[in-house]
């Protein structure tokens, strides 16, 4: 038993050493590779934190709605607050890599689809990545399903074009994008160019009439109004609906006769502290997320570039770069786009021309996964999670059962659709956007919470139905 645990620890060191060697050797070969290494090491930290804190949005809302345990929701809010604080500092310096996205009702609808999907799959986009690192076969299937769905959805036209409103089609054509992109063909192309891009990008600083890249805009507008107050409100709601009654029960048992504001304040603080492990992970995640933005922007200034596409061109790898010379290079934590890219790259190699759409051909490209900065981040995230799981003796290859595999594929499919409609997942469309004061983040979040609620209720109904069937079978 002890021997097996020691072997796992050696494997943890081997994985860490492997990433270290990649960083050193590539940097020695060409210093431009340091840009990719920055993505790698922050991805590694994210993986370690996610595994340590069991940081999963699906589990968080499932625990809350199904059994009334708020531990992880509280942890997620703490992480968001800390990330927002660090982000505000980076934004105030004027060197933030974050760009708000066009937001509207579509953000909430996308979140709703995503929320249902993550409950069905048993893990959100980031949660499935870290669980893959633990050797979980179901989580790997979820990642695969999200990736294939997104990659296909980005390029599907044909009969799907008939579902596009005429106004979207006309608006997409009017954008006068390069002919090779063919913006008038493909559902997602017309959705993006004909509908989403017509929406404004709104930050809380902007709504308060402040400049985004100023101290007051970043801290008063984006942090205080956009994150701190809504997060506190959410925590108070969680306390009153799910925790308050337990606090009253426990205090009554302890002999406290009148329960007033002071007792509730103690109960509220207890709720915050009950999520110690998730909160610690959230704390490190929040700081790391902000630091990644700081480092990436510093490297961009140092290397004299605006996008990693320039690095790949300088290194002699210009295949798979978008017609604007760019590749997906968010400068912060992101999950789903690179998942679409690696499948998109494979499909392209197999003969599918998927470079004539906006998602791949105009914005993100489909570079070789071995040179895709965001892919380095996701692979290192899986590696970081594996390292933590190996050290804590929690790593185990788990084969999925047929039933779980079906749910994983359905959930992954819904998450893939939700991600593309919402321009990101629980990380890119919620966590990062909320922390940076983007109104769209909360809209996606509201949808996601609603979707998670529907998902949990559906699952309860499904489980009860299955159990009733089994009981009926036993009676026969």
């Amino acid at each position, binding site marked *: 038993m002890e021997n097996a645990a020691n072997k796992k*620890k050696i494997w943890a*060191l081997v994985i*860490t050493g492997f990433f270290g060697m990649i960083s050193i050797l590539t940097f020695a070969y060409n210093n431009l590779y340091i840009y990719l290494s920055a993505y790698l090491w922050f991805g590694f*930290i994210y993986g*370690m934190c996610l595994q340590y804190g069991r940081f999963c949005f699906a589990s968080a809302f499932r625990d809350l709605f199904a059994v009334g345990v708020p531990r992880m929701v509280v942890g997620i809010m703490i992480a968001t607050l800390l990330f927002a604080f660090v982000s505000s500092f980076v934004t105030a310096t004027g060197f933030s890599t974050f760009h708000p996205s066009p937001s509207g009702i579509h953000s909430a609808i996308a979140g709703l689809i995503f929320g249902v999907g993550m409950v069905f799959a048993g893990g959100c986009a980031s949660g499935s990545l870290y669980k893959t690192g633990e050797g979980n076969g179901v989580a790997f299937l979820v990642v695969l399903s999200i990736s294939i769905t997104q990659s296909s959805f980005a390029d599907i036209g044909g009969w799907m074009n008939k579902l596009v409103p005429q106004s979207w089609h006309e608006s997409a054509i009017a954008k006068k994008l390069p002919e090779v992109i063919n913006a008038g063909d493909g559902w997602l192309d017309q959705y993006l160019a004909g509908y989403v891009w017509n929406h404004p990008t709104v930050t809380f600083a902007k709504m308060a009439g402040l400049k985004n890249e100023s101290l007051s805009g970043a801290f008063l507008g984006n942090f205080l109004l956009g994150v701190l107050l809504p997060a506190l409100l959410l925590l108070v709601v969680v306390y009153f609906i799910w925790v308050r009654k337990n606090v009253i029960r426990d205090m009554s048992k302890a002999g406290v006769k009148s329960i007033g504001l002071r007792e509730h304040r103690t109960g509220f603080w207890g709720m915050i502290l009950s999520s110690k492990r998730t909160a610690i992970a959230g704390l490190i995640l929040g700081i790391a997320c902000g*630091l990644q933005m700081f480092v990436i922007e*510093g*490297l961009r200034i140092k290397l004299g570039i605006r996008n990693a596409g320039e690095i790949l061109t300088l290194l002699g790898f210009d295949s798979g770069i978008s017609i604007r010379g760019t590749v997906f290079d968010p400068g912060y934590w992101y999950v789903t786009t690179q998942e679409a890219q690696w499948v998109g790259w494979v499909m392209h190699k197999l003969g599918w021309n998927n470079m004539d759409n906006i998602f791949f051909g105009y914005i993100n490209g489909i570079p070789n996964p071995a040179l895709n900065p965001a892919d380095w981040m996701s692979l290192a995230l899986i590696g970081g999670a594996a390292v933590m799981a190996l050290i804590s003796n929690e790593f185990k290859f788990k084969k999925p059962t047929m039933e779980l595999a079906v749910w994983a594929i359905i959930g992954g499919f819904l998450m893939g659709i939700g991600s593309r409609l919402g321009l990101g997942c629980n990380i890119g469309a919620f966590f990062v956007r909320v922390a940076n004061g983007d109104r769209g983040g909360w809209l996606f979040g509201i949808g996601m919470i609603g979707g998670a609620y529907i998902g949990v209720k559906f699952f309860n109904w499904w489980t009860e139905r299955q159990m009733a069937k089994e009981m009926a079978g036993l009676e026969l």
Partner: protein
Amino acid sequence: MDRTLLIVIILTTLFTGFLIGYSIPPYIQAGVFSERKEKGVESQIDKKMEQYYKDLSKSEEKE
């Protein structure tokens, strides 16, 4: 704390620490942490050399 975890944390800190250190000088050069209002990388050309090139263009204009 587990020794393996400690080694992993030290290695990760070393690499990320290097990355942070590597990315700070460009910010300083761009004037982010100073009170300079204009941001941007300053020219490294020697003042005398700069004047030499300016004079060179003047003489070309005369010709």
